[in-house]
């Protein structure tokens, strides 16, 4: 059902979706990459635990939250892929990571 339109720009970028390399177009979003990789759900709800996947693909619904290059809960539909980008499911609520030494304390 999901079909990718041809990208006139062409070119290939390799991203790592849930640990597996996946070739996508240079203008694709991380959410598109996750859909193309066919991983099924892209996050689980922190409230109900239900599996969820990108829905609006335009930054509105927040269903596409994923861990991108280690940064939790990013809206994957708003992130353009980059060579080597790591795209992982956001499972449950994001963790609170200790702020770096330069953080305002």
């Amino acid at each position, binding site marked *: 059902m999901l079909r990718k339109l041809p990208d006139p720009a062409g070119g290939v970028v390799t991203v790592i979706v849930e640990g597996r390399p996946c070739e996508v177009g240079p203008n694709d979003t991380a959410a598109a990459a996750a859909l193309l990789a066919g991983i099924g759900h892209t996050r689980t709800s922190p409230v109900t635990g239900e599996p969820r996947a990108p829905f609006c693909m335009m930054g509105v619904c927040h269903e596409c939250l994923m861990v991108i290059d280690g940064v939790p809960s990013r809206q994957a539909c708003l992130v353009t892929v980059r060579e080597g980008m790591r795209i992982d499911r956001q499972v449950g*609520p994001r963790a609170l990571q200790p702020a770096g030494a330069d*953080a305002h304390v």
Partner: protein
Amino acid sequence: MVGAAIAYGLGKRGARVVVLDEGDTAVRAARVNLGLVWLQSKGDGMPDYGRWSRRSVDLWPAFDAELRELTGVATELEQNGGVTLCLGEEELEERARTIRRMHNQVEPWVYETEMIDRRHLQSLMPKARLGRDVVGASWCPHDGISNPLRTLQAMHAGMKRVGVAYRPDAPVRSIGRDGAGFAAQTPAGTFRAAKVVVAAGHGIPALAAQLGLQAPIRPERGQLLVTERMERILPFPAGGLRQTADGTIMIGSTREKVSSLDTRTTTASAITLAKRALRILPDLVDIRIVRSWAGLRVLAPDGFPVYQESESHPGAYATFCHSGNTLAAVHAEELAPALLEPRLPDRLAVFHPRRFETMQAA
């Protein structure tokens, strides 16, 4: 919030009640509330307000259980205690003075609030790494939170179950005596009743005057920030920060003078709130803010509740307060039955607005 609690309390005692409301455009404090069920700061200067608040937090568990059983809606009540955080020695001393003063005004059982040092505080909230400015806090084991939207929803569902009629299409345009009772004119027609309780928040002044009631209300704007959802790190509300059951942290809230019912948010307020939150919990630095909004507190000149029966129009009452969420339980369980008595009982006289006359004279 105040109106719903009273209506539910009246309805469950068998009174025939209709709630005339303004619908979803109303400036409703319940919708913007932080949802604290909060004791430790209430009543400095009015001991009866401290006791009244304590009564309400004690009534809350049964109130929550009753609503859940009756309606299936959980208010998400948690009473795990709460802290007012002190950033720097000056705030710590000031807070200690306030706590001591409040304890001296009432019986020891009312607040049971104590000052704790940073180490003790950190041990109570091990998952929240405190910023180095946090030197201590006042801790009250009776404080807590509920979800104010759910609380309002539960009370409305409860009203329905106990037979209260709800008319969101009937904002009261004018009100006055009608024989032995009262008549209220609304776009949906005229409603008649033996008694009327004006609990319309910022809508009170216009109605109160028609019934010989005083409503010296001033709006105070409170803005707050809402973060994305995250793992649970706050076991209880701390220094204006609370974490909801869903994992978002609400960062509250400013106290801004406004001259009109202006609920706009400002960037300056957002910055103030974010800066203080980062001094408290530096690890929030990478957390996203997803929403910000502002609401209007309903404040009497001294910040304490007002319950008043009209002298010129016996059977007409005005009720308003800032802490509609905290006081929801006592409003349903004690204020409502008091309103059913022939006259407002003497023990509520302390909440009469005549106190502002002496305030002015003093």
